[in-house]
């Protein structure tokens, strides 16, 4: 899952990026509302974590702009302001969750999972496609009932494939998911991860769609 974090305090943002990356998320960070809108318009994200007091204004307007443009990305507001008015304003503008700082990163991650579940209409954090099972809460993966150990990037990739089974994910999206904006997109790191996933699970699980990207084939056994 790729998350856009909008937070003007760089020290705080760095800490959040470190923690959330450790928990299996790819985080992009920007400090201003207008940058966030640009990023959302040209890249794909699964969630937006938004601080309200931003250098270029109060960020409720960012949520409004997004919703007006028809963007349904889940928005989690993370702010130091706990006034009821602000909360209501945020929810009424289209925010999906509101968390007051300081927050334990484990709670934040749990809320991120909840929003992801809600967005994909699931009741729990266990993703299952055929014989592959992925527990997003505990970061565990099993194949035919046997636990499989995955690296952080493999886990991230597989999770996104399993969130969108039988859908083609573009190479660019997967590259950004693995390495972020400042990753080495020209390298064949992505192929290496996909190869490794095929080896650990099933060779037919992830199909290469030439010229487009990759797709998780839920009927690989047929």
């Amino acid at each position, binding site marked *: 899952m790729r998350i856009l974090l909008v937070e003007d305090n760089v020290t705080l943002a760095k800490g959040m990026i470190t923690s959330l990356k450790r928990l299996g998320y790819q985080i992009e960070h920007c400090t201003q509302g207008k940058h966030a809108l640009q990023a959302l318009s040209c890249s794909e994200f699964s969630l937006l974590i938004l601080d309200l007091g*931003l250098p270029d204004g109060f960020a409720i307007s960012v949520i409004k702009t997004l919703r007006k443009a028809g963007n349904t990305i889940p928005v989690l507001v993370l702010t130091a302001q706990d006034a009821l008015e602000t909360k209501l304003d945020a929810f009424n503008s289209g925010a999906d969750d509101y968390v007051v700082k300081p927050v334990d990163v484990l709670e934040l991650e749990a809320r991120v999972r909840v929003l992801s579940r809600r967005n994909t209409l699931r009741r729990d954090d266990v993703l299952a496609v055929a014989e592959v099972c992925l527990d997003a809460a505990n970061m565990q993966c099993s194949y035919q009932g046997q636990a499989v150990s995955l690296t952080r990037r493999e886990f991230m990739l597989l999770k996104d494939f399993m969130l969108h089974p039988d859908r083609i994910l573009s190479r660019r999206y997967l590259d950004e998911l693995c390495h972020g904006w400042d990753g080495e997109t020209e390298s064949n790191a992505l192929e290496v991860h996909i190869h490794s996933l095929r080896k650990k699970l099933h060779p037919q699980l992830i199909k290469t769609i030439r010229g487009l990207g990759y797709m998780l084939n839920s009927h690989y056994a047929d």
Partner: protein
Amino acid sequence: MQINSIKVWLLIVINLIVICSLSFTALVSYKDAMHELDEIYDAQLARNARLVATMLTAMPVQPDANPLVVSVPEFTDTGENLTSAQERRQGGHKYEQKIAFQVWQDNRLVMASENAGQFPEPMTEQGYHELLEQGVHWISFSLPQGNGLWVFTAQREDVRQEMSEHIALAQIRPILVMMLPLSILIYLVVKLILRPLNRLQHSVAARQAEQLTEISLKQPAELQPIQQAINQLIQRVRHYIQQERRFVADAAHELRTPLSILQLHAQNLQKATSTEEQHEAISAIIDGSKRMTHLVNQLLTLSRLERIQDIHCSRAALVSVVEDALSQLPLPLLDKVSWQLDIASNIVISGDHILLQSALRNIFDNASKYAKNNSLISVVATVTEASNLTLTVQNQSAVLPEPQRMGNRFFRHQGHQHIDGSGLGLSITQRIIELHGGTIQFEVQQPDQVIVTLALPVALA
């Protein structure tokens, strides 16, 4: 029902006034009627006596004959139910029983009405008398003629009593009958007149702290000033609530951000797998605790300043105080902008130097911190005729804050959140200037100028 209420008092007072004035009118007319009645009855008694006396003087009775008795018809008393016309019988009237007369000649009764037997002795004194005979009150009149002839007429007092009761009832009845509709009418009128007050009361009571809107009811002239005053109060309360909310929001932001940094990076440190991650977390924790320390120090300074009432004053040249304040700025801030000082060397101020230095340092610190790179900051001092010093500090800032919020505790412009600061510096400065009997003013001027003006009393050299 509340006793201390305009409505209740109005109702009580108006009803009392109406009852009193009606009763007074009734009493006066009752007295008048009774007086006229007494006059007529008394005159009749005297006239009857005189009539009998005149007739007997013309036709004297035999001295030894039996007394002449004038019969009085007996009618059963039918009470007061019949009309006057029905009471008038062919044979006379039942009230004839209540009128009596006697005629005496030389101490011998010569003529009397049938019902006059109860007066054994004639009243020899001429004039009116009140008698009590066999438990009945009579009003009598005695008329002596010169030749030993006495005429005595009497009327039972209860005739007049009955009359007075009738007249009194006739006065009281309309009051009783009128009072109920009158009080209902009074109640309705009072309610109608007090309706605007009622509406105002409901309108004020319905307002809550979260939704303070002004009252815009159409009011009579007397209530308009009250409504205006309430509206002004509402405006002020709304303003204070808004200020309070902003303060809480600002304070929450300033206090929680360093706490979030500390908590987050401490957790990261706990789970760090590489020395690089450890270093990053540690330096962030140090950074966050420095920020927290600064904040706590500023808060303590402010609270200390708030407790101080007077300061130790000494005199010093303004130039040296300004230069000392500038020398306390960190070098990068000093070098970021160019400073233009225009301060006459003969201006001497009186005050606590250390406090004044930190006040000026805060202003200079803010001026350069939020200024555009390589812009100009001017510090100009002028002394007005009233021996007031005006010190103006002017910079060129990338974003313009709201001047009315500058100096509010914890207020920091959103565009400045990435720059370190606690939002308390200008509050501290403001307090120090107040302690010195001065004022501080913030202004912004488009496109990019922020102007801070200090006014201080000056000690002339």
